């Protein structure tokens, strides 16, 4: 049985790939399909999956602010709040120092240098 974390990841992958809202039923079927396609090896997340489990995963993701529900329709249709690239950009923003609480991630292995230093470094790289 896949853990909730693995399921969250699989659901987000589907929502990010799909670009449109999906119901828990649709997602369950898609998860089951991807399991069969991979022949139960690496990502065996969809095996014997109940719709209630998918709903649990979706509500966890909703609480984390990653998916949103379309209120009007029933059954509810879910979609990703923002794209994979946007979330990645959010993380990188934090790392590269524009976030107010830079202490959360520790000491990026990065920085910028002055023009002369960059020149020195570039020479160093050419010679090696």
């Amino acid at each position, binding site marked *: 049985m896949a853990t909730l974390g693995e399921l969250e990841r699989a659901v987000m992958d589907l929502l990010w790939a799909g670009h449109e809202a999906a119901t828990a039923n649709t997602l369950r079927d898609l998860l089951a399909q991807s399991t069969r396609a991979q022949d139960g090896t690496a990502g065996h997340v969809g095996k014997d999956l109940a719709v209630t489990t998918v709903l649990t995963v979706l509500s966890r993701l909703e609480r984390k602010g990653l998916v949103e529900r379309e209120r009007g329709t029933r059954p509810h249709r879910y979609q990703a709040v923002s794209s994979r690239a946007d979330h990645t950009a959010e993380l990188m923003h934090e790392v590269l120092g524009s976030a107010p609480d830079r202490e959360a991630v*520790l000491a990026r292995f990065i920085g*910028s*240098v002055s023009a002369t230093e960059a020149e020195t470094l570039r020479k160093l790289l050419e010679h090696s």
Partner: protein
Amino acid sequence: MFWTSYFLAVLAIVLAWPVPILLSRAQWPARSPSTAMLLWQAIALAGGLSMIGAMLVYGLEPAGDTLLAGLRSLAGMVFRNEPTTVLGFWHIFALSAAALLSAHLVFTLLLTYYKIQRQRRRHRELLALLAFPSADGPRTMVISHDSPVAYCLPGGARSVTVLSRGLMAALQPDELRAVIIHENAHLSQRHHLLLWAFAAWRQALPWLPTTRLAQEAVSSLIEMLADDVALKTESKASLIKAIAIVASGAGTAGTNGTSEARMAFGDASAVSDAGQPGATGGAGPAVITASRVSRLLTPRPPLPEPLRYAVLGACLLLLALPTALLIVPGLLG
């Protein structure tokens, strides 16, 4: 008691102003970063202790001959309604200030901890969805992003080092190893605790510009310490090349390399200083990178042993002095 409070006040002022400025300008910390790190911690701790101690001792002076006796009669006044007539206005003022400052420091420390933890949790949640396990080592993950970035996210057993695809594409295996060892050194040496304490220290006393100097010095020293760990197993050339590629790669992502790098640096420092009036410029990532690289390119020998022990002795003295001044009269009396 009376002279003790004056001595503690002088110590607090010296540790709050001239000493951090001198230390932040000194060249030797790059030669022995761990010694310098201890000294910064001793200065901050002793500074806080003597700041609070001076006010406490001054305020309690009429209440008792020793700190202990003073605290006991103060407790009587507060909890059992005993007469407070021995305390003048300034004594009560100093005592209130000591209590407020202590509470403020503890509260800021906890608040900073809470904010950092919350942000790390969010970061970890997103990583769990976005990043992939890396083949380069345990607790190493890869995230799809073009900028060459490596960082670590502390969190006990869930600590993780994150590498970007851009970084992995730009670096040779030996350079990548140096980067990973560097990041793992941050985690194993618990550098996040130092950053937390000094970030809180700066947050608590933003009007004291030397708290900014301390935070910057600590940020730079942890990088040097992590570099030194990487140098134990990887060649200096690999490490320098890794730093250089990462640093210049960040700039060449745009069309006009250097100006973009400067823009990024300017933005970063502007944001980190926001809301803290009086803070201008200072050591941003660029300065730290520059001092790291120059220290690798033109290495200087570590401080001679006797000098290192002298600094360590000074650290101990710094911590023992205010403590002794506060406690020992009580033991003798």
